[in-house]
């Protein structure tokens, strides 16, 4: 792989950009791999990357039914934070956040990680108490966050109306090293690194069946024919139910549409991420100047990848109240992704009833921020066959044991 650098740009400029290589190869599938990962979203690609980097396992195929990063990884609003309440969540999300800090260097690919700060507004007394509790929990977990008052909120984000008529801003949970990243680049950067390690990324190839014998997976059937493997990783977010169905087990998850929208670009007006959970909306400004807005999930199961119309109105209404200056902005685009939501709003990383089949799913509305941490933990699980410390609490058994990882802050609108 030719490295990207300032020198490479100068070199290519001097020869009319004829020397750039393809970022990743598009091979035909081999007959068999040590590990097959289904789903080339961020988590699938990161899992493959850390299998290679941390465990030297490189005879790996990543099979994707569409194009890589075309699932939720390319559809999210890119908020990265780790201010979760429970210890096991804080550990994996903070691991991920810290890996984001150096990801551009590690992958030699600019993922535009922008630790601009994430603010979660407290607009009711309950939220004030809840976020103060989270700030204390974060202090114990070693995650740097603080609870700030309304004046500081206004100082950090002058366009917020802090004394709104319905829900005045009473304070906020502030994580200075949270922020945003370039979602496509995260997928592309991992894909390029995986391809460089000799892994096969097979796009436009749908897994349509999981073959097993004696309680173990032997391979998958795909639209490009059968492919065998020693171990299988299912990392397909909203389609986890469908894959589990093929493999013959059930999951504690339901799939719903979550949507987002962006406005026309305007001059820079906010340089932090603001989430307003009471009124249900959140917003940040992209480098192009668009306001990136996230909305709510549908109340009913679906795979439509668009979402219900009324959520757009509800979201925009909430945000106009919070940020009056956006009231005349035109919205440019709206889209949806299918998110996989578990009973306790925390992900599942763990074993399945099939001995050599592992799953990473259930990130629901908030797994972009977790990509490097989720990949790290899932690679360890697949390589060793047992979860390491990061994944230990996230197995599906927790639902039978009643050992939930209740993350109300990860639910609904908060990302």
């Amino acid at each position, binding site marked *: 792989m030719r490295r990207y650098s300032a020198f490479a740009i100068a070199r290519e400029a001097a020869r009319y950009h004829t020397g750039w290589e393809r970022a990743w190869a598009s091979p035909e599938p081999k007959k068999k791999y040590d590990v097959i990962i289904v789903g080339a979203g961020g988590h699938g690609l990161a899992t493959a990357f850390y299998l290679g980097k941390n465990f030297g396992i490189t005879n790996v195929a990543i099979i994707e039914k569409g194009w890589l990063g075309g699932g939720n990884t390319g559809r999210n609003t890119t908020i990265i934070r780790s201010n979760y309440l429970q210890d096991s969540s804080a550990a994996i999300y903070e691991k991920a956040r810290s890996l984001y800090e150096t990801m551009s260097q590690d992958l030699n690919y600019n993922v535009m990680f922008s630790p601009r700060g994430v603010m979660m507004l407290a607009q009711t007394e309950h939220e004030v108490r809840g976020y103060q509790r989270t700030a204390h929990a974060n202090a114990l977990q070693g995650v740097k966050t603080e609870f700030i008052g309304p004046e500081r909120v206004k100082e950090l984000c002058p366009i917020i109306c802090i004394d709104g008529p319905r829900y005045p801003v009473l304070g906020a949970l502030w994580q200075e090293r949270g922020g945003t990243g370039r979602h496509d680049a995260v997928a592309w950067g991992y894909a390029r690194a995986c391809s460089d390690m000799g892994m096969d990324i097979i796009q436009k190839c749908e897994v349509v069946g999981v073959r097993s014998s004696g309680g173990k997976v032997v391979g998958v059937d795909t639209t490009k024919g059968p492919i065998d493997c020693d171990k299988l990783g299912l990392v397909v977010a909203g*389609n*986890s*139910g*469908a894959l589990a*169905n093929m493999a013959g087990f*059930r*999951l*504690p*998850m*339901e*799939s719903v549409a979550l949507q987002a929208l962006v406005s026309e670009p305007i001059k820079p007006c906010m340089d932090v991420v603001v989430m307003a959970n009471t009124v249900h909306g959140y917003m940040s400004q992209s480098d192009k100047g668009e306001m990136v807005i996230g909305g709510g999930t*549908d*109340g*009913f*199961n*679906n*795979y*439509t990848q668009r979402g*219900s*119309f*009324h959520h757009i109105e509800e979201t925009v209404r909430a945000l106009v109240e919070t940020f009056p200056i956006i009231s005349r902005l035109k919205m440019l685009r709206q889209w949806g992704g299918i998110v996989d939501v*578990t*009973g306790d709003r925390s992900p599942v990383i763990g074993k399945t009833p099939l001995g050599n089949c592992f799953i990473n799913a259930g990130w629901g509305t908030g797994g972009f921020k977790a990509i490097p941490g989720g990949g790290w933990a899932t690679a360890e699980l697949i390589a060793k066959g047992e979860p390491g410390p990061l994944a230990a609490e996230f197995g599906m058994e927790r*639902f*039978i044991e009643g050992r939930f990882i209740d993350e109300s802050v990860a639910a609904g609108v908060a990302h």
Partner: protein
Amino acid sequence: MLTLQCPYCGVWAEETELHAEGEAHLKRFGPGSDDADFESYLFMRENPKGVHFERWRHSHGCGKFFHAARCTMTLKVFGTYPAQTLEPPQDIKDRISETYPGWTWRNFK
């Protein structure tokens, strides 16, 4: 926008007038049941790509709970029916078979 007809009051209601209440025909398990049944009842939901049976509530209308058979990929509604039943009516099952010959959902086919 998704619209469903309330089988009680007959109103065609938009989804904003309704509340989705999750999977229909759940078999309930309580104290004394084994762990797997209890887990399955509480957390293991059907999550099909295709036909799904759900409970809805006409919350901003007559207030009644009812059931709906709906495709999760196209949002096509195969029919709605009262909640006081353990199984969807045959005409709805037949309508589903026109779109999905050989469909199954839990114990229904």
